[in-house]
Structures are given as structure tokens and as C-alpha cells.
């Protein structure tokens, strides 16, 4: 497995008001990495769905508090974790604890936001759900072969 190159973590209050802020952040990270417009739009929906679920879930608990998002930036993919516990997580440890998503693990969410989870699964390359003290949704999208040239263009001048 390739190493995480960079990791970005954000916390938002568990309110729908900030789901749009998450989309903007994701959009910035993904376009920096070279994803296409279509891929970025797909990821925006998937991440919004997960964040909306987390906001609703966190909001219904006594804590009421925060939703934590982690963006793991790799050379060839972007991993996103959305946790409703509001507790900072150890990215690598949490990632290794994740198991494949099964029908039974998300029945509760399917009844309320089934379409949302369906969209996450359809739009992302990998989706897993970890259910312990809270719910953590993990998703990943691989960079396609065709990268958009988004970085600086290096021009080489040969000195005579």
C-alpha cells in the first residue's frame, strides 16, 4: 500500500449549514490533485451525503457536537473519512479497522438516507462503514489515467 502523502483534517459543527463548506474544501483538494470536473462533482455528492448523514446522526445524540472529516491524499487516490463522533481520529489506525460495508451494518441509515448511501457507493471506488462508538464512513476515489494539467508548467531553457 502506498503511503499517505498529505493529510488534512477538518471539524465542523454538526449542522447542515456547513455541508457546503465541505464541498468547497473537497473541490479545492481534488482539483489540486488533478481530478476531472466529472470526478470532482461525483465526489462532492458522495462527501456531502456522508457529511449530511453524520450531521443528522451527531445532532441526534446528546453530545450534539461535531463532525470530523479526514482527507488522505495519495499519489494515485484520495481517501475521505467522515466521522460523527466529533473525536479526532488516528487516520491510519481507523483506516485499518474498517471492514467491507455489508447490508446489515447500515440498515438503520438505509431506512432514513438509503439513497444517500447508494449514491456514495455508486460514485466512489471504495466505500466502507465502521460502526463503533460512532459511525465512520470511509471512501476512496482513484485518479484516472488522464490527469488534467493543473500544476505549474515547467519550461526548460538550455543554456548555450
Amino acid at each position: 500500500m502506498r503511503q499517505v502523502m498529505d493529510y488534512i483534517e477538518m471539524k465542523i459543527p454538526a449542522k447542515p449549514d456547513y455541508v457546503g463548506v465541505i464541498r468547497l474544501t473537497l473541490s479545492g483538494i481534488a482539483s489540486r490533485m488533478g481530478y476531472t470536473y466529472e470526478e470532482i462533482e461525483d465526489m462532492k455528492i458522495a462527501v456531502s451525503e456522508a457529511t449530511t448523514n453524520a450531521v443528522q446522526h451527531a445532532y441526534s445524540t446528546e453530545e450534539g457536537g461535531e463532525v470530523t472529516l479526514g482527507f488522505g491524499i495519495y499519489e494515485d487516490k484520495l481517501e475521505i473519512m467522515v466521522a460523527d463522533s466529533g473525536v479526532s481520529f488516528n487516520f491510519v489506525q481507523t483506516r485499518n479497522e474498517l471492514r467491507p460495508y455489508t447490508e446489515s451494518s447500515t440498515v438503520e441509515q438505509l431506512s432514513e438516507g438509503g439513497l444517500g448511501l447508494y449514491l456514495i457507493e455508486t460514485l466512489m471506488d471504495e466505500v466502507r462503514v465502521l460502526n463503533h462508538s460512532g459511525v465512520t464512513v470511509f471512501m476512496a476515489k482513484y485518479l484516472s489515467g488522464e490527469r488534467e494539467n493543473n500544476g505549474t508548467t515547467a519550461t526548460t531553457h538550455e543554456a548555450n
Partner: protein
Amino acid sequence: MNLSIDVKEGNEKISVMLAGEIDAFTAPSLREELLPLAEGYNKTMVVNLKDVSYLDSTGLGVFVGLFKKLKEDGGELRLIELSDRLKRLFEITGLGNLMNIGN
């Protein structure tokens, strides 16, 4: 990151023009605005989505609610001018087959 909702009530139809993003934040206001209009309405509600730049399952949920309400009271919901992105969303969720998605 807001949603503007412009409603014009004519004799034969209700025309709704939406602009902006429909997500968990804006969907409740959309539902509050449109669902009462659909109540007992037996004509056509036309919703123009040309300027909707973002839509997810919360927005789809509002349209499903409107669709059901209008249908049960003898009315009809028509969604028009969807971008390719939005069309795709209706297609992959299967809603495109159930609902009237026009150009």
C-alpha cells in the same frame, strides 16, 4: 451557497424557477415552500432546474415528496432544463424512470 426559489402561480400551472444549491441546508426551505402548493393541486407544477448547480439525495427527496403529493391529488410534477449532471443523478437513482424529466 444558497438557493433562490421563484414561484409563479398561473391559471394552468405553477412555474418554479430554482437557482443555486440544493443540499441538506437548503432542502428544508424548498420543501416548506413547494409542498403546501402541491397540496390539493390537480394541475401541473413545472420546476426549472437550469440554474441548479448542485443537487444530492436531500433534494431528490424533496422532489420525490412533491411528485407523490401531486400525483395523489391528480396533479403532475415536471422537472425541466436539467443539466447533464442532474440528469445523471436522476438516472443512477432510478428516479428518471418514474418522474417526468423533460428538457
